[in-house]
């Protein structure tokens, strides 16, 4: 799980997505794409953004929810807290896979 978080954060586009979700939770894929293009000049395809979102989701940094016919994405900072406290307040040794 921790490895997934590091992998997810290693990519600048994925960090930008998180930056934008801080500003407003509950964004559609369309809004995320619009923000990346207009605010950051990142002209990736929708499919590419969708794949980045899947990486963020599998790391638990983004949670998606369906409401009616629409799908919204929220930021979840909980995995970051675990990373931040891992060395600051070591309590639980890393589990062996």
């Amino acid at each position: 799980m921790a490895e997934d978080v590091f992998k997810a954060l290693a990519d600048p586009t994925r960090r930008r997505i998180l930056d934008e979700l801080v500003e407003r939770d509950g964004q559609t894929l369309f809004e995320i794409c619009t923000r990346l293009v207009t605010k950051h000049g990142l002209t990736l395809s929708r499919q590419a953004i969708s794949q980045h979102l899947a990486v963020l989701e599998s790391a638990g940094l983004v949670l998606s929810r369906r409401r009616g016919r629409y799908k919204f994405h929220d930021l979840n900072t909980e995995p970051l807290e675990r990373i931040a406290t891992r060395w600051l307040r070591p309590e639980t040794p890393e589990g062996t896979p």
Partner: protein
Amino acid sequence: MRIHLTSVFVDDQDKGLRFYTDVLGFQKKHEVPLGEDRWLTVVSPEDPDGTELLLEPSRHPVVKAYKDGLAADGIPAVSFAVDDVQAEFERLRGLGVRFTQEPLEMGQVTTAVLDDTCGNLIQIVHSK
């Protein structure tokens, strides 16, 4: 060449007409009976001879997949110009309209995206 007509697929033409006229503020231009359906178009009162919007029935079998796919990802079917997105957002929200994207300022352009209750997302936009 100019854009004469564009269309949105509505699940129900009566419901569509009500939403596009009573809520969004367009006016009916043509209503021609065509079997079970009608050739039903609306125009902007600001430009009654301008581009018509056809409220096309969603009956064709591929339409559902098209609409569901766009809706899930929040992609608008069509975009309308307004004077002030924030003001229009407040007005429409007051009428119970649901937005999938609240007003978003992006340099010269402000946009928002709303649900037309007939299966489509509509973008509204103004430029500075």
